[in-house]
């Protein structure tokens, strides 16, 4: 595992470059956070001309956050989204990894058609299938339930495509050897393919989580009881053409963005060289 160490100068240059890129990403967010932590007032007061106050409020208050959780039941929306996301991930990871394996390692009749289906499912705008999908969900009698939010998102073409790309990297010889030893396909899938593809599984978990967490249009259409209100519906409810409550909008947007960030923060340890990708692929 010995690697040649980079020169300190190169390291410093990388650090400066990374800091510059992160300023681009973080400054607008800092401003939003500062605005949410200020006592509610006009939005633009500190944006232009620019002062230190723009990013670091002099009076800090958590009133806006307390308000959205205590009076506007934002916690309920968080829990709803969490439930929907976790259930979708459970189904999605299972069926999509199976399909990815089928596409990566088997030749079978109808394979090209299935791959074509997988591709077009993420190339078609959701907006254009939303009405037929709602008619279908109503006919299945699952409109205005959690099932309406979970089931249509469970089959994920993008996830299947990703799994296929990763499983193709696993050398076929290993699978052949396991077959000769008498292992069943299910066993090979569970004991060889999945353990070798932790980064892919982690990526799909984040992908499906983000997809469900950020979905707005479909929950608006598929459910109407406030019981099923999800995060994005709750956030965007604070914005309307007549009257936008910036304090509520920004504080709920920040609170609503924390779960994906926390998830990524903890799962990214699987994206580090040397932890996975050892052994068989050398």
């Amino acid at each position, binding site marked *: 595992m*010995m*690697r*040649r160490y980079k020169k300190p100068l190169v*390291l410093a240059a990388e*650090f400066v470059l990374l800091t510059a*890129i992160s300023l681009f*990403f*973080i400054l607008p*967010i800092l401003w939003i956070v500062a605005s949410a932590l200020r006592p509610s007032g006009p939005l*633009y007061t500190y*944006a*232009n*001309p*620019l002062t230190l106050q723009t990013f670091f409020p002099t009076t800090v208050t958590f009133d806006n956050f307390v308000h959205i959780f205590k009076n506007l039941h934002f916690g309920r929306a968080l829990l709803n989204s969490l439930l929907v996301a976790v259930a979708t991930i459970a189904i999605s990871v299972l*069926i*999509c990894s*199976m*399909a990815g394996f*089928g596409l990566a390692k*088997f*030749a*079978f*009749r109808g394979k090209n058609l*299935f791959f074509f*289906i997988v591709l077009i*499912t993420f*190339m*078609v705008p959701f*907006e*254009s*299938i939303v009405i*037929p999908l709602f008619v*279908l969900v109503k006919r299945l009698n699952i409109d205005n339930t959690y099932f309406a939010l979970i*089931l*249509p998102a469970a*089959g994920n*073409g993008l996830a299947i*495509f990703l799994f296929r*790309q*990763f499983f*193709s990297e696993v050398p*076929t010889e290993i*699978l052949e050897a396991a077959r000769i030893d008498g292992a069943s*396909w299910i066993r090979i899938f569970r004991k060889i393919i999945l353990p070798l593809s932790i*980064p892919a599984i*982690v990526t799909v978990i984040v992908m499906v989580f983000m997809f469900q967490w*950020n979905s707005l249009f479909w929950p608006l259409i598929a459910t109407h009881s406030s019981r099923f209100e999800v995060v994005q519906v709750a*956030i965007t409810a604070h*914005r309307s053409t007549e009257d936008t409550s910036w304090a509520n*909008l920004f504080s709920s947007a920040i609170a609503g963005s924390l779960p*994906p960030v926390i998830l*990524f*923060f903890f799962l990214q340890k699987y994206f*580090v*060289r*040397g*932890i996975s*990708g*050892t052994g068989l692929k*050398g």
Partner: protein
Amino acid sequence: MFRSNRAGWFFILPAFVFLGLFKIVPIGVSVLESLRQTTYTGRSYFVGFENYTYLFFEDPTFWNSFWITLIYSLVVNPLIILIALVMALLLNENRFFTKFFRTVFFLPTAISFAVVSVIWSVVLDPHYGLANGFLTLFGLPAQPFFASTAQALWCLVFLNVWRSAGYWMMYFLAGLQNIPESLYQAADIDGASAWTKTRKITLPLLSRTFAFVLVANTAFNFLTFAPVYIITKGGPRGSTNLLMYESYKSAFVNLDMGRASAITTILLGIILIFSLFEFKWTKAGFEY
């Protein structure tokens, strides 16, 4: 590759059922809708390819949107992929600052597109926005941003790069884990420079991930809708009227479902053609 109808279908069947029911059926309905026209009384009848021939030969609004969508895609896709790739390469090794920067780059992705659009509409406000605050601080003239026909589309590009680069970085990071460490060790023994290792080992072995990101990102960006809907409404003077927004207007403002479905079907065709080229170019799509 193993030749087996039974095993192959066993593994794809559950996904096939879900995709078939919740994706293919609605897509089929939408494509069929593009062959129909709805009257103002709400009755709909079959018209063949009339919606398409009208779009192609008599609809300058469609062609304006078509070209804008194409220009937008040709700029935004390479930009996002390049930045995402550079970020992933810089943050592939485990150093004391790696985790921090990765999380920072990922932050915008955690905010939904709708909220990101609201944020940038206020950041880029021509009078009071943060962006002009910065420009005046450095003595530069304030800019109109979304209020200008010359700048609005580039602001959309900017917004999308900000939101999406960290997302695709994640896929590159995952793909980088698949490259065997032993190759780098061998290269180290041969005294290869960091740049040589990147060019000769990392990039070639990243091609499957690269193909994935290229195809998926292209499809996503062709379907850009939320920022147009929330910030510009296609304006000023049609300069950001992307095809998805034009289709939305047809469906929900002008109640012309036939035209709306025809536009999205054409969009699907364009995305498929682009994907085909991208698969060919990366040579990673159909190798069996």
